[in-house]
Structure formats: C-alpha cells, structure tokens
C-alpha cells in the first residue's frame, strides 16, 4: 500500500513535469524575452572569453610584456605615476551604475514610474561617465604616448643594465634598470627616440618596441567593451523615454523591458570585472 502511494506521487510529479513542457506554460518561469536575453548574454560571454583567452595566449607566447601598472599610470589633471588609479575610478563608476540599475528594476516591480525614470537616468549618467573616462584614456594613449593598433612603444627590459643617454623626461644618462622594468619610447617631431643602454653583460643595445599585439589587443578588447557600454547607454535612453511616456505602465508587466536592459547592463559590468583583471591587475 505504502509503495503504491509513493509510485502514485511519483507519477503525479512526473505528469506535472511533462505538463510544464507541453506548451502554454513557461517551464523556466521567465518570459520568452528574458530567457532569450540570458542566452544572448551567454553567447556574448563566449565572444569576450575568446578575446580575453587570445590576450592570455599571446601574452604567454611573448618573451616580454609591458607591465600594466607602468602603462596605465597617467590620470587627468596632470597626474602621473599613479598606477591603476584612474582605471579604479572607472571600475567604481560601472559598479555604481550597476547599483542604480538594480534600484530602477526594484522600482519597476512596485510600478513606480518616477522611480524607474530617476534611477535609469542616474545609470545613464554613470555609463556616459565611464565612456568619457575611456575616451580620455584612449586619447592619452594615442595622442600623448603614440600607441596605436600597429605600434607599441611600451617595451620591457629582459636584462638589467645602465642607460647611456636620457630622454629628458623620466630617464637620464647613468640611470640603472632591472630585468622586467618597462619603458616608453618617446616620439618627438615624428621621430622615435630609442635610447641606447649598456647591459650588465657589457652589450650596447637600443630600446626595442614592445610586442605589437599589446596595442592591437588593448584597443580591440577595450573598444569592444566600450561599444557594449555605448549601445547599452543608447538602449537605456530609449527605454527610459518609453518608461517616462507611460508605455510600460500600461503593459502592467512590472516594467519587464527595464529588467531586460538591466540584465544587459549588469553583464557589461561583469565583463569589465574580467577586462580589469586581465589588462590592468595581472
């Protein structure tokens, strides 16, 4: 008798399960749009993972690699030698804009139109601020430090030695360096100035350009992420305007569109966690 009940219960659970998948119901208890947003983000995660793994592979394959805390040590307002500080500020901006996005979704659940619009506006400001910071960073790298997709003036010493000449900025003749120290080759009036140095082994050499792939990977991957931020901001603006016009209030579905752009926006923050790790921290 006891066994019969268990079997019966089991069959009932099974029938219920089948019922979930036989149409007319949402087996994953989310709408089609939200589910597809998750799967789009999954595919996008693979794209970014592919890029970041390519970065790792090329970094592993190079005898030397520019040290990130040397490359990214400049900030606006004339701040120099402040390693990673500017990019930390950029990270905080994205985290804060993620938090304001969560608040917008929460207000959506309460069907509070003004709350949704207010918190989405703050999110847009955060995203635009991040893009502004990135524009400054790129401008500094391209305009001041002359790094491009094809040229990487950031090199790294493989052996220790002494400089024979100076560049009049950071390096003067007689300065010593260790293996693993990075340097920036300066460009004046369209000409590169590769400084001569003497290794501790006694050889006289000139500064070499760093691995080309560094510049290409940097601009491509941060550019692709920046493009995600840019399109995210564009969609946020559209959805904020729609919310403000009362479109979603009429639909009475808890501002689902806000939830969907929220998922996308958190994903952009999520990718930045790994771009930050790979390009700046490691």
């Amino acid at each position, binding site marked *: 008798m006891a066994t019969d009940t268990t079997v019966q219960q089991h069959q009932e659970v099974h029938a219920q399960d089948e019922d979930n998948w036989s149409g007319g119901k949402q*087996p*994953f208890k989310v709408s089609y749009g939200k589910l597809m947003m*998750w799967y789009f983000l999954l595919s996008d995660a693979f794209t970014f993972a592919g890029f970041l793994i390519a970065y*790792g592979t090329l970094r*592993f*394959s*190079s005898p030397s690699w520019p040290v990130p805390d040397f490359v990214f040590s400049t900030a606006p307002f004339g701040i120099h030698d402040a390693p990673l500080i500017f990019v930390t500020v950029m990270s905080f901006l994205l985290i804060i804009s993620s938090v304001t996005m969560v608040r917008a979704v929460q207000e959506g659940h309460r069907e509070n139109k003004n709350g949704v619009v207010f918190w989405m506006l703050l999110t847009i400001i955060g995203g635009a601020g991040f893009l502004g910071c990135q524009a400054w960073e790129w401008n500094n790298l391209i305009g001041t430090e002359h790094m491009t997709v094809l040229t990487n003036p950031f090199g790294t010493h493989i052996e220790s030695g002494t400089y024979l000449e100076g560049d009049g900025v950071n390096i003067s003749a007689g300065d010593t360096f260790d293996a693993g120290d990075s340097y920036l080759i300066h460009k004046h009036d369209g000409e590169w100035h590769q400084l001569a140095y003497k290794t501790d082994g006694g050889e006289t050499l000139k500064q070499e350009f760093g691995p080309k792939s560094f510049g290409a990977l940097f601009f491509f991957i941060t550019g692709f992420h920046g493009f995600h931020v840019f399109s995210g901001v564009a969609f946020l603006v559209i959805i904020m305007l729609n919310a403000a016009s009362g479109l979603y209030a009429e639909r009475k579905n808890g501002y689902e569109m806000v939830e969907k752009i929220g998922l996308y926006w*958190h994903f952009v923050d999520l990718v930045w966690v790994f771009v930050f790790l790979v390009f700046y*921290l490691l």
Partner: protein
Amino acid sequence: MEGINYDQAKKDVYKGMLLLGAVTLIEVIVSLFGKGHLGFDPSGMTIIIGIVGFLLIALSLYKAYFIIYEFMHMGHEVKGLRMTVLLPMLLLVWAIIAFFNEGSAWKNRREKVIERNEMNADDKPVKEIGMIYEYPDWEIKKG
C-alpha cells in the same frame, strides 16, 4: 524578489555596492603589492607572485558570482535556467588550459628558432624524429 520586502531589498543593494567596491579596492591593493609599489618588491619571488595572481583571480570570480546571483537575480531563477546558462561556461576551462599551453609552446618554439638562426647552413642534422631534427653538440662559429 518574492518573499523579501522592499526596504530589505533596498538595503541589500547598497550593501552589495559597498561589498563590490571593497573587493575592487582590495584587488587594486593586492595588484600594486604584487608589482612592488607598496614598499616591498616581490619581483623574482615566484611563490608570492603566484599567490597574488591566485588572489586576484579568486576575487574577480567572487565579484562575477555576486553580480550574476544578486544583481541579475540568477539565485531566484529556476534550476533549469541556471544550468543552461552556467554549465556551458565549463567549456572555457579547457579553452583556457589548451590555449595558454599553446601560447607557452609558441614562446619555447621562438627560442628554438633564434637558436637555429645562429647555426651554420651546412650543419647537417644527424637524425630525424618526426618533425624535430636532433643536432649533435656543436659550437656556434662566430664571425
């Protein structure tokens, strides 16, 4: 969202912001320590640099977990949805192992190429094993 009242949810969000900010700050400090900016230079100490790298990766993964489970509400989704999104990510484990191994192999090959370039053209390989030629011990003739 269900089961948690609005005020509690609001508080959790700001707690989350402080947590992510703190973890990011710790990451930056750990990274700067690893690069020798905080008074102590660990360059050349493989174990310390290894620990720093491991810490940075672990903290980033924690941040990723927090964003997905709390901000994107993955923790509140049905198990089937969670699995269909998260399990495919395991494919990346092998991608990382395979490609990083390949990267190091390119580097080693590069050293071999430089070595070969210093050889004389008339040095003959003694025996052939697959694609790899074995050379006898020979001196680099300079000049």
